[in-house]
């Protein structure tokens, strides 16, 4: 996204090219132009731009893509950690 970059080397996006059938769906759904199609195979060209929304993974017909998508704000992550540790949430903040 022009003018905005987030941290490098953190995105969990992975592509298994051996499965890819080159349908181009991942290019169609990604709002950050993370993929390119080369020789009828998808390739990750800008992993650091990935916001882990999960659109590519969910729409890939052959499940060639994996990504850890989920709550992405501080309050939400704190609540998630509390839930994992079975500690009741503190007020909830704004995350559902």
């Amino acid at each position: 996204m022009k003018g905005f970059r987030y941290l490098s080397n953190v995105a969990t996006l992975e592509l298994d090219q051996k499965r890819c059938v080159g349908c181009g769906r991942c290019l169609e759904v990604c709002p950050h132009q993370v993929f390119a199609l080369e020789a009828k195979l998808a390739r990750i060209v800008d992993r650091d731009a990935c916001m882990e929304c999960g659109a590519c993974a969910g729409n890939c017909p052959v499940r060639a893509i994996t990504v850890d998508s989920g709550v992405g704000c501080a309050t939400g992550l704190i609540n998630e950690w509390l839930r994992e540790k079975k500690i009741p949430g503190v007020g909830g903040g704004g995350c559902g």
Partner: protein
Amino acid sequence: MADHLGACMARWGINRMDFLVPPGLYAIGAPTPEAPVLVTANYQMTYDLVRRALAGRNVWLLVLETFGINVWCAAGKGTFGTTELVRRVAESGLAKVVQHRRLTLPILGAPGVAAHEVQKATDFSITYATIRAEDIPEYLDNGERTTPAMRELSFTLYERLVLVPVEIVLVLKTLLVLGGGLYLVALLAGGSGAALTTVLGYLGAVFTGIAVAPVLLPFIPGRSFAVKGALAGIAFSAVFFALAGGALWSWPVQAASFLAFPAVSSFYTLNFTGCTTFTSRSGVKKEMRLGLPVLGGALLVSLLLVLAGALVY
């Protein structure tokens, strides 16, 4: 994926009941059985935007039940999703209304939908058209082809500004509780003047983190939201120091103000990641792993400073 960007959704979910458009199939103009079918959420603002963009055209509009939440947030929650889309296609009898088998979806709805599964269940194939509703007319005129600009996200000043009021409403309760507590403690420790200064500083630091830093986001150096928030917080501390007559404070209080306020701002700016469309969950996790101990430490040290200062002076 069940509730990605949970924050954002709840944020947008505020007042959701005021914004309900009944789900179902709508005709815009006088569409033929060949006219395209556009799919959207029953969030009033999106719906109005789409209708306005489509004024004067003849298309079908299939509105999904997203409980008044916008497409992006509902897609994360899964309400703008495969199950709802398949059900709505069946319930509306779309297959009898149109002759083709194509559905046109907003790109930001894609996280909730598996196009191939919808096709398997309904025989309708999916095209993800544009990110912004305003681009739909151009998309239709362009032979239903997406240009690179139509799938390029933006996060303009305006788009950041409209998020701020919602963010503020969400923290009001916390502000009342913590601000009130802070006031009482400072009142007992240093009198009403000190109490007022403390609370004003706290509110200012929160506002800096929640509103100033997000609005100035691209102009504050660094990529980390925690760092951006802390920098904005330091700037605020300096301004506050000058305005509130900080030169007269004892040095532990001076030091504490430059530690605690930036820590508060930093946390709220980090929390703003839930509203953006370019920060990743893994990135926020990393920031929190590194940042929360620092923020907590800064708050603890400033508390100790103030306590120690109160004993000595």
